[in-house]
């Protein structure tokens, strides 16, 4: 692999590090029911099939760290087929954080767009 694609991969990874938390919080805040990992991954895939931004496997550690920080809560429920599933739900703290994060995202987007156009 050439050095440039390696750098590009790294850049993509760093971009995802922040945005994936924002995206996951938003998805869970929009959903009325608690959702499990596979469901979230499918939803993301369907809403933006032309951008396979991140591997689905990278969502899980992010979900876990959001839960660790109290922005999500989760519970395990058995499933009819296969292993038990962990269902995630957004918490009050999560809703509050999402509001702030969206503001930051808007600012960042505006700023970056301005620079790139300039």
């Amino acid at each position, binding site marked *: 692999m050439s050095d440039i694609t390696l750098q590009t991969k790294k850049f993509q990874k760093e971009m995802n590090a922040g945005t994936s938390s924002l995206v996951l919080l938003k998805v869970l805040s929009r959903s009325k029911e608690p959702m499990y990992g*596979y469901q979230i991954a499918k939803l993301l895939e369907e809403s933006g099939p032309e951008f396979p931004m991140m591997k689905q496997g990278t969502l899980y550690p992010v979900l876990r760290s959001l839960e660790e*920080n109290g922005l999500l809560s989760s519970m395990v429920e058995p499933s009819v087929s*296969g292993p038990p599933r962990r269902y995630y739900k957004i918490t009050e703290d999560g809703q509050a954080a999402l509001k702030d994060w969206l503001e930051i995202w808007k600012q960042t987007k505006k700023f970056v767009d301005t620079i790139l156009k300039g």
Partner: protein
Amino acid sequence: MFNTVEEYLDALKAEMQGSDAALMQDALADAREHLSTALVVAREKNAGLNEVDALKVIVDEYGTPEETASAYQEVERRTSPSLKQTVKSQSWPARFFGVYADVRAWGALLYMLIAFITGVFYFAWAVTGVSVSISFLIFIFGFPIALLFLLSVRGLALLEGRLVEALLGVRMPRRPLFSHQGMKWLDRLKALLTDKATWLMLVYMIVQFALGIVYFVAIVTVLSFSLSLIAIPFVQEFLDQGAIYNNGLRYSFPIWSYPLLILAGFLLWTTFMNIARGIGQLHGRFAKWMLVTE
């Protein structure tokens, strides 16, 4: 490429070799949940499906074991257990007296108190469970009872792990291990019985009884002794009574010794807090060694 979910999990395990055992356990649980669910969905859509091909597509979307492992390690670097602190080098008096500001010391004290209660419960549960399971094994319904008991041991071990992580700041598993999915229950019982982890957990539950009592006695003894030393001047001055009582006679400590007594009580408790912090760390390591399967 991977022919089964288990093969993927083995590769992931190999990839995560050397990282925290608890983190690995979480990563494996997540991967198992996702890959199995995706396979079931794929099978529902297309009954005559070639599993190997389907798994290839699923793994392609999920990420290679290498990518998955690095994602977990990346996130873990950013979120550390709640009580973990950055180690600052300090002079020893600062470290000695700084123990009052150290959450780990207070956490360890609380854990040592709670260990008394949980220890008694674990012991009672383990002894009752083992004896009931063994004696009922002569009946056919002894087998499900034994299975339920062993599963409850697993559950309690997970719970204890959460307690250890919250109070002692040692990273413990956040997910149960579901390694026996889709097995017949008799096979499942066999798997649990032959798993070293089950027995280590049982031993832990029994040892915790002794440790819990030792911890509790140590706290109560040292605390009451320290408080008594500090209280002597007040008892003598305000209640006007000698603090030493022997053969119907009361003796008093001289006034010049008051500051020394208070200082001694304070130092005793401070020393004990330092020891408790150490015990907490040791116990955390012990719990990790006993309760987390590699």
